[in-house]
């Protein structure tokens, strides 16, 4: 755990006093202290291209009254710096008075260990793995023309000091291992990417030469794409594979169920609470409590313990995801979804691990039921316009389905749909729910945070596929 006060002229008592004094007449707020250590090591083009280490330390001071949020951050933890932030907050909120809410739920459950993954594996052994990846893939097949492999590791320590001196702390490890391979055959080039990660040590993910499986998967995706044909264009049936394709849920539904957009009534879902928004059999939860997952958090960035929030239960909209600010203004409670990229950013309600739960059909049944459509196995990124509800995501591995059978692979195409109606088009839910491999980063208002997704195979009756073949 970091001690934020031992290298500063600011004592813990000074900080407590200043926090209480600043937030006294506000509805909520806190001093958020953060220290992070991170590394990234990249092998590219047969060489260790870069090895970077970075350390970051700073605070963000937030005061909220009524609907107004005042925020000030600095990377200098000192008496002067905290005082000037305090002045800044007071001047913004000078004419708005509130009553501080001291209540914050407690839990002693932890979903990951206090480790520093960077220190747990020597630089030498990380370099060795990267070089092995490069050799393995280049020897595997003559069509391999480029290999990129990387490690990213981080340890983030936070402390939240609330008015009255209550303090909440968390230490969060996070790692990611990624392999990208480019193949060239008969003048065509295609790339395959695969990665793994979560809130454990590197070796928890790399044991039993697991790096080889990551390489094989990246290679397999690239090989499939070398044979791909132009994708069809138009509306058709779409079968989604289990696991990572759940970013569809994240984009189509997840963002629209975040508290801020609904308080502001800018989400297409804001007036649908309690209504049927999905087919029967569709249940979606957002869960911050799964051990060691990329999107899991012991406490959120306001100090609230995370939970498993049911968003949609058997087709009915049940809950939005809330941070303290939006929860207070909407007369409800925080769901432990208040997150920020780091101390430079304000807290927003965000997703953690967003999951559609299993039903009882099989992927086979789904494919067999489709005359003409596509089977999408893996995706790159996605995006949503939460107001119109329209969302897209890009296939990185997909196949045609003709007369109930999987056909040729198709080129990367964008799929587009309408968030509030897409889940009503789900006609089969598989029994094969799977978590993604631990690679997701969600962007909102310029802030990226690690997230997870999960889903079983599903059949969507109608979606627009953005290919070139009419």
């Amino acid at each position: 755990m970091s001690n934020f006060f031992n290298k500063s002229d600011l004592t813990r008592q000074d900080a407590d006093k200043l926090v209480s004094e600043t937030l006294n007449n506000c509805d909520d707020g806190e001093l958020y202290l953060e220290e992070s250590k991170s590394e990234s090591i990249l092998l590219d083009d047969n060489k260790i291209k870069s090895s970077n280490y970075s350390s970051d330390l700073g605070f963000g001071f937030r005061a909220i009254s009524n609907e107004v949020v005042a925020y000030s951050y600095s990377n200098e933890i000192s008496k002067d710096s905290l005082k000037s932030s305090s002045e800044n907050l007071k001047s913004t909120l000078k004419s708005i008075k509130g009553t501080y809410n001291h209540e914050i739920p407690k839990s002693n459950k932890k979903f990951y260990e206090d480790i520093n993954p960077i220190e747990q594996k020597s630089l030498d052994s990380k370099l060795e793995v990267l070089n092995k990846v490069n050799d393995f893939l280049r020897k595997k097949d003559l069509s391999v023309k480029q290999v990129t492999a990387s490690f990213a590791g981080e340890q983030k320590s936070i402390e939240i000091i609330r008015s009255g001196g209550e303090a909440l702390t968390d230490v969060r490890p996070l790692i990611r291992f990624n392999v990208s391979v480019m193949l060239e055959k008969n003048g065509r080039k295609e790339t395959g990417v695969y990665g793994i990660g979560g809130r454990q040590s590197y070796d928890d993910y790399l044991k039993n030469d697991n790096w080889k499986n990551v390489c094989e998967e990246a290679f397999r995706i690239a090989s499939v794409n070398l044979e791909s044909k132009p994708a069809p264009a138009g509306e058709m049936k779409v079968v989604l594979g289990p696991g990572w394709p759940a970013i569809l849920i994240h984009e189509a539904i997840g963002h629209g169920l975040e508290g801020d957009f609904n308080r502001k009534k800018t989400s297409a879902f804001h007036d649908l609470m309690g209504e049927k928004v999905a087919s029967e059999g569709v249940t979606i939860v957002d869960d911050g409590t799964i051990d060691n997952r990329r999107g899991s958090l012991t406490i959120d960035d306001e100090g609230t313990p995370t939970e498993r929030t049911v968003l949609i239960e058997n087709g009915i909209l049940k809950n939005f995801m809330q941070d303290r600010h939006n929860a207070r203004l909407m007369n409800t409670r925080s769901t432990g979804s208040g997150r920020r990229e780091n101390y430079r950013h304000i807290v927003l309600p965000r997703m953690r691990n967003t999951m559609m739960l299993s039903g009882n059909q099989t992927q086979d049944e789904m494919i067999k039921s489709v005359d003409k459509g596509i089977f999408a196995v893996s995706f790159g990124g996605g995006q949503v316009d939460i107001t119109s509800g329209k969302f897209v995501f890009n296939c990185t591995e997909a196949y045609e389905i003709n007369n109930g059978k999987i056909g040729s692979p198709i080129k990367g195409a964008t799929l587009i749909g309408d968030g509030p109606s897409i889940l009503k088009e789900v006609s089969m839910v598989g029994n094969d729910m799977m978590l993604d491999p631990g690679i997701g980063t969600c962007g909102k208002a310029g802030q990226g945070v690690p997230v997870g997704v999960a889903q079983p195979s599903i059949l969507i009756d109608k979606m627009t596929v953005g290919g070139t073949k009419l």
Partner: protein
Amino acid sequence: MVKDQEFLKSKASYCLDLAKKMGATDASVTVGHSISETVNFRNKSLEASDRSDGLALSIETYLGKRRSSISSSNLLDENIKTLIEKCFETTKITPEDEFNSLPDKNLLAEQISSLDLYDETRFENDKKIKYLKDLEEAASSDKQIINTESSFTENKSNFILANSDGFCDGYKTSSFTTSCVTVAKDENSMERDYEFSSKRHLSDIKQASDLGNKAAEQTIRKLSPNKIGSEKINIVFDKRISKGMLSVFASAISASAISRGTSFLKDKIDQQVFANSINVIDKPDIIKGMGSQNFDSEGVNSNTLQLIENGILKNYLVDTYNGKKLNLQSNGRSGGTTNLYFENGNISYEDLLKKNSKSLYITETIGHGSNLVTGDYSVGATGFLVEDGEFKYPVNEITIAGNFKDMFKNITLANDLEFEYSINSPTMMIEGMTVAGK
């Protein structure tokens, strides 16, 4: 106040001296300081204020051809010392790479001229509040607008770049950015759109009411959209989308993508890649330019580059490392393009719209559907159906797709170029793309 040059220089030379003392053969360091103040409004009242004050340091140490780097926001001498030690220890065990080096000395920028990138005017938060009030008043005057959100950010930055070959320079920059997002609703749909303005100097920022009116107008016209059928169609890209084609082009000609072989424009120097009427220029010395710079992120002098001349690819964007790999001299583009633009075409905006009896006018795209390796392009889009030069109705929930190699050769540009951002393009038409809809 943003820290002065003397403070940043003293930190930079402290780092270089320390790295040298530990045995580094070369080193380079960037020290920067930035202060930003933002005020956010929603529905005509104050929603948030945000002040940020951040120092940043990054150091690269070399031991012969070995290199590694660190970065930190903590500029206490004691912390810097620990980090440089760690950095140098890492350098020692990082494998050699023959292309690692500081830039060639004779390429370093020598005399830097003022490009007027800094406006010291303080725009107090009370004035930002007044501006945003006026802006939202205008934005919400139509009753179909049900939500307005706007912000004003003032930023002042300063930096020093120094290396062990004696380069040590930097300068202040400022920016003033204001934006407005509006939501409109009718019985059929709810739509969102935006407008923004970003300038080096406060006096160049758009009038608050103009910005608000524009955002509202652009949102209201999107209401009650239709989906259209799947077909081949000519697409007109609004300026805010056409400039994105230049971003894709810039990524595809970066020396890094070329040397790794992961670009659809590899080995295309001196070949036709655009229609022969197209010229693309990257100009670093535009006065008050949003992308202007005196030198690149390695200290290398950057001159104006003609990237495309009559449709032919003339230059890649070259930095030191990838330049050495490709046997090319750095052209001062470590960190990418500066002020990048298409030269004007020779047809007016109105005539471009009338050129075909039917076309699709795109105002927004979503998704990350550009594949730089294959050139394949497929994104979600919203826009308008245009017939005989007239906007007929809004269109959404469609995708547009093609391949950049073909798209670039079928571009026609209007003559309405304006220098608003760091990347600028006239309105663009591309013939024969595929729309997927119903």
